[in-house]
């Protein structure tokens, strides 16, 4: 395969390109025999696939079977299970930090926490990616996809782009100006990024669904940034910045307050 733009051409066929990139690709297709042949071949493949019945209808009775199974779901054991894990986590964290101080800061958040076990290497990769999100804030020409501090604008934008409604806290009293939002994709999950500016320091607040998340609440350091992670309201939060851990923990408290307020 000689052309290095075949994936772009495919994305064009799949309607995944924005208008500017689509125009550029059309120009490329006019010149590149390989890509235009590929588009034609994939186009007729798609047409042929349209003859295949796309959906198998769910059999009669499956819905009733699921309803019965749901009737049997008892949330109690699950809650007990998580309570035990949280207890184990808090104990482990206290030992790890050699004191209860940091544990207490997070006790509120941890009460509703999902603590998932995970191998160190996976966790390392995810933490690297999270820290990378703040690096992107610093080096990107446009640190935000949507520049606004207006909740009424940001909320529907996040819902559309990352299928999440992160709590959007006004931290201006603490000196943090909300610059805007960005969509991130980390560890196979859609992540909402809220970008705050504090003096000359950027703070990225990353928020994603706790479903299947592998991140544990706690504190970490990557690439010269501090990461403070916590969970609550079915979400995982990670604040990343080069400011002190105490500053980040204070931000965490303010955001939790906003999340609690939004939930009530």
């Amino acid at each position: 395969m000689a052309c290095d733009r075949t994936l772009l051409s495919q994305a064009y066929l799949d309607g995944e390109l924005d208008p500017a990139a689509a125009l550029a690709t059309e120009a490329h297709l006019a010149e590149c025999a390989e890509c235009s042949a590929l588009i034609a071949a994939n186009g007729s493949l798609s047409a042929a696939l349209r003859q295949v019945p796309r959906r198998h209808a769910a059999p009669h009775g499956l819905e009733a079977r699921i309803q019965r199974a749901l009737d049997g779901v008892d949330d109690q054991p699950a809650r007990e299970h998580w309570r035990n894990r949280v207890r184990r986590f808090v104990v482990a964290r206290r030992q790890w930090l050699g004191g209860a101080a940091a544990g207490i800061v997070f006790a509120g958040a941890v009460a509703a926490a999902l603590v998932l076990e995970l191998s160190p290497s996976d966790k390392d990769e995810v933490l690297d990616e999270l820290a990378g999100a703040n690096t992107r804030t610093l080096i990107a020409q446009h640190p935000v996809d949507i520049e606004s501090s207006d909740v009424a604008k940001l909320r529907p934008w996040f819902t559309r782009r990352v299928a999440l409604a992160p709590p959007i806290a006004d931290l201006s009293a603490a000196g943090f100006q909300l610059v805007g939002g960005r969509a991130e994709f980390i560890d196979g999950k859609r992540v909402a990024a809220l970008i705050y500016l504090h003096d000359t320091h950027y703070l990225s607040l990353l928020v994603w669904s706790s479903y299947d998340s592998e991140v544990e609440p706690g504190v970490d350091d990557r690439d010269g940034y501090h990461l403070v992670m916590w969970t609550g309201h079915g979400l995982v939060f990670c604040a990343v910045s080069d400011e002190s851990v105490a500053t980040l923990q204070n931000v965490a408290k303010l955001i939790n307050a906003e999340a609690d307020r939004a939930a009530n």
Partner: protein
Amino acid sequence: MDEKRKRFEVMMLPHLDAAYSLARWLTRNDTDAEDVVQDAYLRAFRGFDGFRGEDARPWLFAIVRNCHRTRWARARQGAEVPLAEEHGADGEAVSTAQQLVAEGDDPEAALIRSNNAAVLTAMLRGLPEEFREVLILREFEELSYRDIATVIGSPIGTVMSRLARGRALLRARWLAAEGKADDGVR
């Protein structure tokens, strides 16, 4: 019925056909597909507190896929290579094509038969799972690259390259079957 259950049913049950369909393409049989979907709805309900979005289908699909893989891993404990090429199923695809062609009595009919949906279905079923799943999600469920990435838990670049390879593989097999059709009738 409590509030959570009601909300869950309103958001998730409309996608039952889609979920079953995906499970059917992944498991390639009815019984396993039903079990996977039931597992998936139970897991989805337990994890529903974590669902914040409007876009239920990719979220549910990701769970269906995980349930399928968990069951599959359990069923094949000790087997070495996951996602290996499924030779048996592939052989089945080719033989179906040959069989259909053999039944044709004139070249045109043979060609139409070799083109038909049954052959393509069999070929899709015979694709390795990593390609089959992205093709189903794209061509049949018409999910965006981003949503497919969510479902399979991989970066968009992986989605793009798997789609490209899956399509190339399917085209090659399709052409091969057509070539055999031509040879058979001449």
